[in-house]
């Protein structure tokens, strides 16, 4: 039955050796997607992304992979003389080795690092950006920390707590870079993440909005500059054709046998007119440029209203409280049931006997001083 090729599919996936009769048996052993020795494309020159996904991804193009003509793989001691396409990658434990060593050691799955013995995977290798691997490590640690410790000064009640927070972040960063108390440090990070999950999320959103705005502003700036350059080029072109046309007119005039004096005068008048027009045009363009500049500056300016410190009162209606002194107690039979020391139903619900007196007295004195008579100076006796 196993020999019947038509029923081969019943057995599920077969090894290539047994299904050699099938036309589709040309499949290679290596897993698709992993750059095995068979399907690996030719390695480009150093510095260009090759079969590895972990090439440097920087859209601005300012960051480039580090390579040096004295590069030498510390594992197989191959150098650029023996392999001009030598490309060194960095492991998660910050050891360099060449691509062929990585292929050799890690294609069959996780294996120990030949230098320090840490178990590594092929996907963990990244391109080198900085010459000094300590810098490389610090940059990646800081990038990781900044992703989660993204609080801003606005998130703190005062400067002191913000400073404490920055201190803690720096402490954690130092520990990670230098390998001090790693388990404890990781625990601190986890605790911070748990305590601030919502805020971290909000801040990520805020940062992405800010980044988008920044990108839009840059884009706008670039467009504005391009537009300006194009305008300048067109101006120059116009100028040149104009001058050319004039020169031709003079020659043609002379060819037709006109009076040289007259031709010259006419050209001179024309040239004058042209410069005047050019000046006008320049002034106009200056204006347009200025307005374009302000138009560009406007979106950046929209958030300039500053947050002000809290003000307790916005009105100046006084309760008259400065006009009287409330006695600690009054002889008031109406509110006698609400005396606080009785702890009756009246007070438990939040009723204050003193408030009723305060209201009565303040209402009595509130209107004083509003009239023309200097009665605000009057001593008001609010005793019973």
């Amino acid at each position, binding site marked *: 039955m196993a020999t019947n090729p038509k029923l081969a599919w019943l057995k599920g996936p077969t090894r290539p050796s047994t299904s050699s009769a099938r036309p589709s048996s040309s499949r290679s052993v290596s897993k698709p997607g992993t750059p095995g020795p068979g399907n690996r494309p030719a390695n480009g020159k150093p510095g260009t992304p090759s079969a590895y996904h972990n090439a440097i991804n920087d859209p601005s193009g300012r960051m480039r992979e580090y390579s040096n003509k004295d590069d030498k793989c510390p594992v197989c001691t191959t150098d650029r003389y023996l392999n001009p396409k030598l490309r060194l990658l960095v492991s998660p434990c910050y050891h360099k080795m060449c691509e062929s060593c990585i292929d050799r050691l890690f294609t069959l799955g996780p294996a120990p690092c030949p230098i320090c013995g840490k178990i590594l995977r092929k996907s963990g290798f990244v391109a080198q950006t900085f010459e000094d691997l300590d810098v490389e490590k610090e940059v990646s640690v800081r990038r990781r920390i900044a992703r989660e410790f993204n609080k801003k000064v606005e998130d703190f*009640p*005062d*400067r002191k707590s913000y400073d404490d927070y920055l201190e803690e972040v720096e402490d954690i960063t130092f520990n990670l870079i230098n390998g001090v108390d790693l388990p404890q440090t990781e625990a601190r990070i986890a605790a911070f993440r748990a305590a601030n999950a919502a805020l971290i999320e909000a801040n990520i959103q805020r940062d992405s909005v800010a980044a988008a705005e920044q990108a839009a502003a840059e884009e706008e700036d670039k467009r504005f500059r391009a537009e300006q350059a194009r305008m300048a080029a067109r101006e120059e072109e116009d100028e040149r054709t104009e001058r050319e046309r004039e020169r031709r007119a003079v020659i043609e005039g002379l060819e037709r046998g006109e009076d040289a004096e007259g031709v010259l005068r006419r050209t001179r008048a024309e040239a004058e007119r042209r410069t005047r027009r050019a000046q006008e045009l320049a002034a106009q363009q200056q204006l347009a440029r200025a307005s374009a500049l302000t138009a560009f500056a406007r979106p950046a300016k929209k958030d300039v209203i500053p*947050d002000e410190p809290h003000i307790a009162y916005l009105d100046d*209606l006084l309760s008259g409280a400065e006009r009287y002194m409330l006695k600690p107690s009054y002889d008031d039979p109406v509110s006698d049931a609400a005396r606080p020391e009785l702890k009756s139903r009246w007070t438990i*619900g*939040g009723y*204050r006997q003193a408030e009723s007196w305060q209201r009565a007295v303040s209402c009595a004195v509130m209107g004083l001083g509003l009239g023309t008579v200097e009665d605000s100076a009057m001593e008001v006796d609010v005793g019973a």
Partner: protein
Amino acid sequence: MDVAERENLEAMRRWTKEAKIGEGTFAVVYRGRQVSTGRPVAIKKIKVGQFKDGLDMTAIREVKFLQELKHPNVIELLDVYSNKSNLNLVLEFLDSDLEMIIKDRNHVFKPADIKSWMAMTCRGLEFCHRNWILHRDLKPNNLLLAANGELKIADFGLARDFTDPGSKMTCQVITRWYRPPELFFGARAYGTGVDMWSVGCIFAELMLRVPYMAGETDLEQLKVIFRALGSPTEETWPGHTKLPDYVDLGRVPKPPMQDLFTAASQPALDLLQKFLLYDPLKRISAKDALHHKYLTSLPHPTHPSKLPKSGQPMKARPLPPDELDGKGAAVTGQGATKKRKSSTMGEDGPRKVARKLEFN
């Protein structure tokens, strides 16, 4: 034509009505304009004449208190006039409320935003309390937002003055989720503490983006409160067992608030806890809240113009459900139309509060 009639006619001519933007059993709200300046206003037309008892009590309260209160954080009553048998209140036009903003998941609230709203709420409320008026229906739905971001306290239909020692006050006020425990226990004399509890609930809601303590029934609500804050003891609230409707619901320990409000700063939690103290006499007053460390410390409250705004275009704001339900027996003639309205607006079920009127 006597003087009053002439004045009324003059007032009527100052305003024009445009589209209808909301309707309840007792009132219809129109969008309108000031004729002289074109300033947009909201005109609340109160239907009079279909009630046995005469004018609706909420309308009387609204006019009575709003005419006295002029403050940047309290809705302004611009004019009152009557037309045929209807009473018209001309109010400031405000296009959204805090509830819409809280529900809109597109907004991320920064701590400074919440601080700004809290500062404006406390400022407006302190002004009411200073003038001896309790609002008694504070909830995000009643905190309206102007186009420039200013928050204004609105809907004084349940407001009343306080400190009168002779009169009992009703305990059937404030939307359930924002109602303090002393009202559930039937306290008939209370003070500013009831509003402060509501402010605490709103503060928590701003941080959580969902109502903090939402109970289905009054009893359920008490249980929810106790689960959130621990049950009151003789130390936290002396004498509370003596209140008329006190019920013993067993002991629940107080869970740490930090667990729920993970992103809240220390001063914010401190203020929240002071808003939600069981003893109404110990509960922080609006004035003290205005001077609390939370509001004065960094970050500064967001400038109102930069606060999150409602993204959706202005839509009809349904009137509070309690206004829509009406008072049952009071209306008999318009039963059919009334039923239809309350069924369309009835999805806010748990927010309803039985509105009992006091005539004392």
